[in-house]
């Protein structure tokens, strides 16, 4: 078990170093002096602000230092929580933009992932080898999982918000709402949260349901299931065992799917103008606010690594083979 954890930790540490290095290297790899390129592209009219931005970039990139020192300082400022300053909202630090955006992204992602995973597994397991349910779930699941996240969002807005006026078109809350821990504001938040959540949930649900259905069919055709059947075990029992075995790949799949769902959340936020990380990154990209892009990337890396670690622990609890040092949880 210690070996299992050690391997995982090495992978995560290595991933983090690689990701940070890439994050640092990309501006340096591009041809020319990155500061001049950036200044040329952002085109700030006010010469005083332009000078300030230029100074800031020069300090941030430390271009006069040798490369290894620049790299070292990148790490130092990273551990001091300094991710640079936003150009679009000039003296706002990138860190504060991110900490303001994160709650919204998490509020969408966590329930969408958890509920879609749970419901997808349940429905997928129910549908496997049951004709009528399978004939509806299978096409539905494939349609959903093949839908681009943003398009489902567009569709939901168009039908439910623009045509029927049942839900708001976007944003996290009404611009007129008074912020605070009041019932009216909370319900306003929930009202605006529902559609982006739903569109994330639906696409992810399709994938989990299909995955579980296929896994259960594999399990039901395996030797132990046939043997149990030959012994006269009730169907319910066989399906229960099949479900337990099919869960393991679904847990591993959770770690694998994180990146895709995250990408989905980013574009869903853009469609709904929901002020999470995705919306911020979109704003940063369209306005060429590079430190924000790089900072959000680092945060996404950290989040995904943490989530992977949680999945590993869950796997350890669910699969007894990893605990007694067998090969069940091999990375």
């Amino acid at each position, binding site marked *: 078990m210690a070996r299992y954890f050690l391997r995982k930790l*090495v*992978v*995560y540490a290595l*991933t983090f170093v*690689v*990701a940070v290095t*890439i*994050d640092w290297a*990309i*501006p340096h790899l*591009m041809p020319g002096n990155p500061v001049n390129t950036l200044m040329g592209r952002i085109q700030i009219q006010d010469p005083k602000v332009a000078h300030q931005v230029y100074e800031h970039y020069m300090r941030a990139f430390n271009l006069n230092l040798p490369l290894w020192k620049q790299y070292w300082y990148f790490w130092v400022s990273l551990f001091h929580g300094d991710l640079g300053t936003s150009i679009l909202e000039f003296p706002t630090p990138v860190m504060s933009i991110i900490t303001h955006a994160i709650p919204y992204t998490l509020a969408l992602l966590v329930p969408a992932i958890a509920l879609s995973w749970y419901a997808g597994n349940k429905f997928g397991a129910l549908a496997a080898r049951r004709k009528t349910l399978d004939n509806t779930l*299978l*096409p539905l699941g*494939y*349609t959903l*999982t*093949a*839908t*681009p*996240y*943003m*398009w*489902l969002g*567009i*569709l939901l*807005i*168009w039908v439910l918000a*623009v045509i029927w006026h049942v839900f708001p*078109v976007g944003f996290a809350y009404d611009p007129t709402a008074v912020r605070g821990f009041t019932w009216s504001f909370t319900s306003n938040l929930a009202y605006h949260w529902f559609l982006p959540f739903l569109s994330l949930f639906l696409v992810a649900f399709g994938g989990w349901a*299909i995955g579980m259905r*296929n896994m259960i*069919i*594999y399990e039901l*055709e395996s030797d132990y299931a046939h043997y149990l059947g030959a012994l006269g075990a009730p169907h319910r029992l066989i399906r229960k065992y099949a479900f337990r075995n099919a869960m393991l790949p679904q847990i591993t799949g959770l*770690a*694998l799917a*994180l*990146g*895709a769902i*995250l*990408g989905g959340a*980013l*574009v869903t936020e*853009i*469609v709904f103008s929901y002020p999470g990380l995705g919306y911020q*990154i*979109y704003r940063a*990209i*369209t306005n*060429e606010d*590079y430190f924000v*892009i*790089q900072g*959000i*990337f680092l945060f*996404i*890396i950290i989040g*995904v*690594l943490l989530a992977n670690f949680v999945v590993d622990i869950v796997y350890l609890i669910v699969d007894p083979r990893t605990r007694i040092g067998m090969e069940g949880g091999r*990375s």
Partner: protein
Amino acid sequence: MSSVPTAPLASPADPTKVEELPIRQPMSGFRESLHFALRNKKLLYGLSMTTALLLFALIGPFLAQHGPLEYAGQLSLAPTTKGGHWFGTTLQGQDVFAQFVTGLRLAFIVGALGGGIAAIIGMVIGFTAGYRAGFVDEVLNMLTNVVLVIPTFALLLVIAAYLQVRGVLMEAVFIGITSWPWAARALRAQTFSLVSRDFVDMARLSGRSSWKIIFREIAPNMSSYLFMMFILLFGGAILIAATLDFIGLGPSNTISLGQMMQLSVQNAALQLHLWWWFLPPGLAIMALVGSLYVMNVGLDEVFNPKLREM
């Protein structure tokens, strides 16, 4: 099995007809696959849908009467048969049909190229890791795990944001070199289970080179698996490309399905009810990727007798 023609009973006295004795020859692998393939609804549906879309992507641009980015005459025109605006025009007066077929063609290019590159990298790494256990395996496995954990989509965002000129080819290459890990991992496991078989040992004893053994002995035994892997990578690449394009990191100087959606949202096409602008691109991606996935299940059932529905 009803389609297998049963040979007419030959009289034992006639020695020339011995070969036609009604001994059921086991069907060859290919014929058996074909037999089940032609009866698999999922496969047939997926294949015909994909083919139809491919033909549309190939022929469509020749039917379009306007360039995808040029001003085509009228703003926000609803679909009409007049002037070739079958899908209407955008808020800026560009022909949606022309944009749609261009985007569809790009989707196929990105899918084939991105999926192809990912499949090749996945095969090289998966085969090597599975065939050469030990240190090489450890290193490649570590590499796979690192790329697997990195949220590659976010990585693509950062890289694409810094590129000044973006092309379809570059997008496909980037998608290819970031989406191979799961394929490599699956192939490594498959290779692992084949390496210890007798026929591989025989090939080794005969002194053949490793790559020859991998491509002559191991790969053909999972050809169906490789094909299905490519289909999944193909569909995945299309979805990733659409997402990137939607964020505004699509190819410069042309238009993709993702960019169509981005522009329609940016220009408030939803509020203006210009449904002909934002419905077709998403619908096309959904139909294409969905039919690829359904085709994949169909193939799985064809190649794996356990999965066939009785």
